[in-house]
């Protein structure tokens, strides 16, 4: 109570970490849920599992074609998944190399190009599909006027968080994630599951193993105290007074005497095809204390994720250069020098804390969660509910582990593992049970 007496009248009572933790978690779970919801809606509206997509044909062409067009079997799926992971690893190492050579402009340019490509081409395709399916009589002139405009505005919003309202920036990131995830759900079924599991394993390895590309990149960024250009979703900080460097929240170049330069994750979209976004981050229970000591937590540069070039494999020749890459970079959490307790790794899949104490989640996590739920939606809504709950539970477990271990952890493995497990269980066990109950009018 002595503290309260010393406070200025009208000053809000000192908040503990518990007061803001729920809000923090809500602010990261809501966009993830929104992304998944939109992908499920799009999949329900637009998917026609009978018609083979050009993507399937391109896969068949890449993997030898001996399986026939659009064949959906396990060897093809495994080969595709392994190819994807290899491509992502190579791209991440390339990214690390570019970052090491300080080619930040070309990284940013590539990020901008890929996010613009995603929004323009994938967004245009999705819009056309929606218009065709709903028979909405929009005319070509308006469409040609609106699409590049919207794509340009959203790309700008995704890339430079300082020039647009925070809400728009976050919405643009979610839109990019939704479009990429929808594109991924067009893969054949076994390929999708193999891809998800492979990416979860890759994420685990890349973040935790000493030679992993993400770890290398993050260590580079930590040691240089720069941010990696990447696409990372950053939740709005609950208390804007948390970071003393409120003005530095978006700027990466200024540095105070006591503070590391705030390395807000700049948005850099790199889509090589498959990006794995892991969120690494540690939720520090002492974030409040840190904030109050004006030691903002600096996020280490995120790890860019290169997405594999499925497009390249398939239809690059036909469509030119479509590089949809979403670079998901996670930023490691860097403690200020006063409290530096060791390096913290950031996975792309980690949940990090920004300099203002907000939670950061890489865009790749958004994408792969939504891919899992979208693929579940192609079966039935029952699997959607089960997988959604599993993923959110996995996210919570990851946050808990982060707070416990205080090091960067990948966010994909737990959620994807639980999601796949629940999908299998629902489809084999729960469905039979529910069907029996329903047909016998026992439970609806």
């Amino acid at each position: 109570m002595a503290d309260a007496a010393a406070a200025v009248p009208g000053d809000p009572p000192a908040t503990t970490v518990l007061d803001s933790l729920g809000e923090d978690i809500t602010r990261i779970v809501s966009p993830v849920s929104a992304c998944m919801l939109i992908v499920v809606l799009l999949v329900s509206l637009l998917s026609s599992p009978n018609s083979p997509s050009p993507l399937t044909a391109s896969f068949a062409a890449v993997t030898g074609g001996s399986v026939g067009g659009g064949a959906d079997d396990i060897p093809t799926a495994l080969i595709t998944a392994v190819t994807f992971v290899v491509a992502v690893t190579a791209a991440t190492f390339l990214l690390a190399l570019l970052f090491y050579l300080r080619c930040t402009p070309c990284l940013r340019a590539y990020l901008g190009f890929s996010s613009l490509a995603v929004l323009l081409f994938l967004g245009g395709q999705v819009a056309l599909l929606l218009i065709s399916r709903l028979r909405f009589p929009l005319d070509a002139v308006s469409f040609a006027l609106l699409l590049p405009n919207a794509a340009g505005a959203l790309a700008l919003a995704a890339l430079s968080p300082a020039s647009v309202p925070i809400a728009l920036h976050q919405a643009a990131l979610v839109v990019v994630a939704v479009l990429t995830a929808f594109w991924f759900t067009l893969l054949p079924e076994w390929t999708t599951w193999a891809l998800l599991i492979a990416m979860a394993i890759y994420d685990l390895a890349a973040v935790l193993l000493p030679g992993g590309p993400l770890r290398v990149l993050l260590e580079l960024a930590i040691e240089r105290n720069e941010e990696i250009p990447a696409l990372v979703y950053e939740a709005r900080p609950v208390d804007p007074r948390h970071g003393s460097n409120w003005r530095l929240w978006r700027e990466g170049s200024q540095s105070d005497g006591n503070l590391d330069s705030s390395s807000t994750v700049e948005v850099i979209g790199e889509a090589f095809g498959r990006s794995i976004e892991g969120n690494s981050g540690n939720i520090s229970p002492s974030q409040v204390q840190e904030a109050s000591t004006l030691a903002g937590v600096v996020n280490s540069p995120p790890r860019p994720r290169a997405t594999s070039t499925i497009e390249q494999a398939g239809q690059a020749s036909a469509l030119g250069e479509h590089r949809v890459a979403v670079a998901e970079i996670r930023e490691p959490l860097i403690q200020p020098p006063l409290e530096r307790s060791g390096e913290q790794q950031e996975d792309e899949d980690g949940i990090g804390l920004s300099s203002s104490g907000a939670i950061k989640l890489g865009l790749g996590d958004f994408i792969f969660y939504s891919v899992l739920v979208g693929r579940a939606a192609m079966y039935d809504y029952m699997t959607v509910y089960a997988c959604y709950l599993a993923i959110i539970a996995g996210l919570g477990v990851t946050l808990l582990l982060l707070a416990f271990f205080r090091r960067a952890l990948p966010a994909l493995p737990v959620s994807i593992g639980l999601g796949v497990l629940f999908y299998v269980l629902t489809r084999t066990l729960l469905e039979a049970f529910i069907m029996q109950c329903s047909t016998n009018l026992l439970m609806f």
Partner: protein
Amino acid sequence: METRVAGVPEDEESGLLPRPSAAGRRPSSAAPRFRPPPAVWATVDGPLGLPLEEAEGHARRFFLWGFACLPFLWAINCCYFWPILRSPAASTPAAFAPIRPYVVRSAIGFSIFSVVLITWATTFIVGGERLFGPTWNDLVMYNVADKLGISGFMG
């Protein structure tokens, strides 16, 4: 009570800390125990938004680039500087004065664009073939997409 514009340091002590955060600071023994007047921020994000000195350049850049057939930049400008737009013209704080013309003109530009677009689109949708004749089928988007072969999902 005069309105304070946020982000403008009023004394040399504030440094990087914005004045409104003084409300959260524990007061020293000599500080008066009054709440400072509520700050007015230039951007809709409040303390997290653009600092004041960059706001003018930003508003002007978005306004000028909007003429390159990018009216959504005008919309972003209006949304971002909504507090400036909303404050009545007479009592705008002096710090907002250089920014306000750009924001107002962006608002005017965006409203003109949206009125024109909505009028045209509504005429097209409601009029249909009765008004346009057979060219309606040539202009409607799903037919154009089918003709160009882009309505299937590309890889």
